[in-house]
């Protein structure tokens, strides 16, 4: 794993974010290395999505600093940031009244000057992004008529077309059926391995975090509760403390640990 991972590309230093009087992030520090795949886990309201948005400069930071490629994020223009970093929100039920191909082409925005038309290279980038994400077959369909899984892959396609080296993904698999979950996770792994795309993924799927990511960052109450190698997170001293919950673990044939599902026999009426 040490082979593919490069120097730090995104550094978060003692960052605090406030919504009104509520402090959602309290002194969070994270270093993300180029080419790594980091899963961000933690209970609801821990500040995971807020951290993701702050890393893309989509939220004002109350204190601390964020460095992108060694330079203060606040010194980058929006377009400069967008050429490096792409934010991939949950493919929720928002109205997207555009054909899928046009939506992916909109990812080229940070590469276009205000009056220039869409160029050959922009179309090529969009086509390539759709090919690699397997979204070509619904290029002409309206985005909000696509299924959740198709839409999530299309959001990733637009982020690839954007030319970003860092993808910030907010719960990319939460509302997907098992086949599409596996599809999206495999696509992300491919992008990470073949194209060296750095991934930060907010997820509630602890097994996906443990089995697909290199590193885990656990947030609790707006602060970093634990961070380290994904394999090391699969322990009640880590997960139990983060979620205030006892997990049962099992070991796969390849020696990797995973969380066992709960319920069934012990479950009472409640």
């Amino acid at each position, binding site marked *: 794993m040490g082979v593919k991972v490069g120097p730090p590309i995104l550094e978060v230093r003692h960052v605090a974010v406030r*919504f009104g009087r509520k402090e959602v992030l309290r002194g969070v520090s994270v270093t993300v290395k180029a080419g790594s795949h980091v899963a961000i886990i933690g209970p609801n309201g821990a500040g995971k999505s807020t951290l993701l*948005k702050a890393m*893309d*400069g*989509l939220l004002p930071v109350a204190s601390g600093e964020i460095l992108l490629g060694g330079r203060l994020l606040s010194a980058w*223009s*929006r*377009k*400069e*940031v*967008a*050429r490096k*970093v*792409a*934010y991939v*929100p949950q493919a929720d*039920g*928002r*109205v*997207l*009244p*555009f*054909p899928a191909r*046009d*939506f992916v082409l*909109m*990812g080229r*925005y*940070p590469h*276009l000057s*205000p*009056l220039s038309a869409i160029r050959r290279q922009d179309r090529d980038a969009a086509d390539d992004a759709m090919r690699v994400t397997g979204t070509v077959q*619904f*290029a*002409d*369909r309206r985005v909000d008529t696509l299924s959740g899984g198709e839409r999530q892959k299309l959001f990733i396609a*637009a982020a690839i077309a*954007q030319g970003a080296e860092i993808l910030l993904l907010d719960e990319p698999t939460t509302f997907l059926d098992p086949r599409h979950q596996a599809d999206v996770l495999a696509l992300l792994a491919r992008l990470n391995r073949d194209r060296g795309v750095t991934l930060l993924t907010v997820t509630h799927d602890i097994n996906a975090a443990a089995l697909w990511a290199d590193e885990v960052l656990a947030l609790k109450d707006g602060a970093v509760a634990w961070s380290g190698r994904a394999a090391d997170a699969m322990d009640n001293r880590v997960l139990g403390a983060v979620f205030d919950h006892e997990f049962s673990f099992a070991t796969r044939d390849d020696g990797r640990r995973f969380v066992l599902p709960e319920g069934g026999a012990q479950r009472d009426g409640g």
Partner: protein
Amino acid sequence: MAGPEKRRGHGTAAALFGALLVSLVLSMLLAPLAGMKGYSPSDVLSGALSAADEGIFWKVRVPRVLLSLVAGAALALSGMTFQSMFRNPLATPYTLGVASGGSFGAALTLKLGLVFSVFGLPATSIGAFLGCLLAVTLVYGVTKLKQGFSTATMLLAGVAVGFLFSSVLMFLQYMSDFAETFRIVRWLMGGLDIVGYRQVLELLPLVGVGGIAVVLHVRELNLLVTGDDLAAGRGVDVATVRRRLFFATSLMVGGVVATCGPIGFVGMMSPHICRMLIGSDHRLLAPAATLLGAVFLTVCDTVARTIIAPAEIPVGVITALLGGPFFLWLLTRSDAERG
């Protein structure tokens, strides 16, 4: 399956633009001929009109048609910009109280008897522009204060701001003497009945600057429709773009309000009808909505001044009679459509 669907989309756009251009030319040619006294094209071309009729045609009818074209275009383009920025077809400068702000601004300059002009723009236009800007800032500020941007908050804030400015306007009238009140009431009744070209020429630069500013942001408008977070993530400086577009629409709406008084619903219907026909790509939507708004207001005004001739109905009554039911229809379906 997908291919034909796309081709049909392009076909619809071509057909719409064809129909709009034909109606634009027809309304420009025919609307000035219609009126209390109708003229035939040959009368006008052969110079067979009496001096009085010539005056009516060139000094009253033609300027009025030009004004309705410019005002309709400006209202539709502003309406489209609001609908896209707020991602809701019910959001327009009129429903959000922006036009009321403009009315207040214009009335205040009338009350104060301000007659200055800046770069040839009359005080009422500047007052209306500032009023619009104040109203849109208020509505947007209130909407932003509340976490979780909702349609309900925005529309209610718009209604509240509209009422606020209307009541301040009433207070203004109450405090005015008879002559001032008359000026304000006469102006508030609005309408496109002008004499000569001065008002058209005063409105054109406002609409021109505002319109060009909107057209330069069609790509950003497309992205704003996908959501503020996605737009910002793609590199749009959302706050700056929004500020510029508020400024641009305030110029246009302020100009129209100052010249014609409040005319509702043009800005809601024209862009939404175009969106239903050709989709939400603003590179096509902006010109289509602009053309439809121009034609729509001209047709409404021609109806308003001919249907019970020699009397005239204020054009705002016609647009509201058509627009009111349209608004209600949108309201019943927008929840399902917009989620």
